[in-house]
């Protein structure tokens, strides 16, 4: 067994205090693990909790119960209830997250946005710049745009900048939330290549793809997450 991430009985609920304290149980008792070089694809209808699962694994959403263990620099680290400093270190070194949305920071140039994950790991500026240039070139972002802040770019360009940023460094465990959505065929192919390169380099991937072609190009295993049916959904008034 060469697992890089192990999830046991993970659950996630949302309590909406502003809406009469409704409790939504989105994830219940999920257990799975992913090995090095393997890609697990999450399956389920819209609303089944696929994105919620990725965000919970990343610590962006607070798990309600269960365990998320990640192999972080030769040691197992528990992320549920982990100290913020520890979670941030895992995010810097081990756990990557790529969505289709770029969070734009005013005034920061595209090249700097892409280089950031490498600089955060202590890479030299030149090495980071070389890698960022290579990725932006592969993802067909014209060089004339590299020194501009991506705030004014088209949706597709912003998405590709975000993907370049996501693949800037090697992540032992990588979470991908529809990275190929709404990309044209040429760029979609590049992203699938990047994903397969990450797999070959030994990353464990957990991904969401709505596009069947993309899914079949990278998936090794599927996790079925059927939508919670309404009869099963519990509405509890907490307030």
């Amino acid at each position, binding site marked *: 067994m060469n697992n890089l991430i192990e999830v046991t009985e993970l659950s996630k609920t949302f309590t909406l205090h502003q809406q009469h304290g409704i409790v939504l149980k989105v994830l219940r008792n999920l257990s799975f693990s992913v090995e090095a070089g393997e890609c697990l694809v999450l399956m389920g209808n819209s609303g089944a909790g696929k994105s919620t699962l990725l965000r919970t694994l990343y610590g962006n959403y*607070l798990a309600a119960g269960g365990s998320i263990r990640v192999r972080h620099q030769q040691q197992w680290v528990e992320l549920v209830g982990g100290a*913020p*400093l520890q979670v941030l270190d895992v995010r810097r070194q081990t756990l990557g997250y790529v969505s289709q949305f770029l969070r734009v920071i*005013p005034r920061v140039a595209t090249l700097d946005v892409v280089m950031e994950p490498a600089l955060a790991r202590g890479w030299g500026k030149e090495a980071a710049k070389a890698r960022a240039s290579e990725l932006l070139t592969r993802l067909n972002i014209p060089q004339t745009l590299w020194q501009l802040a991506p705030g004014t770019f088209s949706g597709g360009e912003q998405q590709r900048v975000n993907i370049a940023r996501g693949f800037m460094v090697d992540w032992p465990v990588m979470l991908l939330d529809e990275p190929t959505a709404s990309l044209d065929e040429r760029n979609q192919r590049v992203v699938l290549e990047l994903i397969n390169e990450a797999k070959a380099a030994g990353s464990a991937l957990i991904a969401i793809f709505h596009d069947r072609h993309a899914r079949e190009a990278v998936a090794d295993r599927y996790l079925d997450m059927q939508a919670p049916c309404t009869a099963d959904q519990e509405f509890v008034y907490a307030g």
Partner: protein
Amino acid sequence: MTAAVRVNRELAALEPLFSVNNVSKLYGPDKGCQQVSFDLYPGEVLGIVGESGSGKSTLLSLLAGRCLPDEGQISYLREDGQLLDLYASSEAQRRTLLRTEWGFVEQNPRDGLRMGVSAGANIGERLMAQGVRNYGELRGAGISWLKQVEIDPQRIDDLPRTFSGGMQQRLQIARNLVSSPRLIFMDEPTGGLDVSVQARLLDLLRGLVRELGLAVVIVTHDLAVARLLADRLLVMRNSRVVESGLTDQILDDPQHPYTQLLVSSVLQP
């Protein structure tokens, strides 16, 4: 890989730079702040958010040792490795700390600058307090820091009152950073600035925090500012910390009813 392993070891061996234990100061029932505890580590940026009157500024004054608490302790790990009990030390010691290893960026730059002396003298003051007497060295530091905060170095002999609000705020930051502090307190540093100036200042702060490895405690009511700068947040309401955790988790999945209200009340431009 070796570098990464080293970082992890450092993390494991890390001691808090600043440790706050059950600090309270009340001006009336639930007015002020009470029972606040947290640890701050080197290089970490902690944001304190909450509405006006929730006790943010009172807490910041207590943390910086500008006023004394009704109860509670703060210990600070000095550069020489000694642990300092903040409230047990003398006022002179606390002032020295604020001028050397710490910094305080006021919301209104007029409170943090000396308006009657030049920009260069404002920057040089802390260095002089640390014993630097060489004119060339002081002037060199002035020019270098004006450049770093994106103020034209030719303005070095001008009085701060001839500067715009955004420039004054950047000058205040330079004045604080020149002595290489390890811990900076900031009270709404982008408060009265218009958005374009604010973006520029935030960008500057982000860069400086990373390059200098500063620990920062920043009070703000602007959640976007908090998201951009802070690793971790404390949410305050009616003098108490109601929620704390990773910044993005607090903002994207707030747990406490008040935090949910706060986050859902933000206008999207």
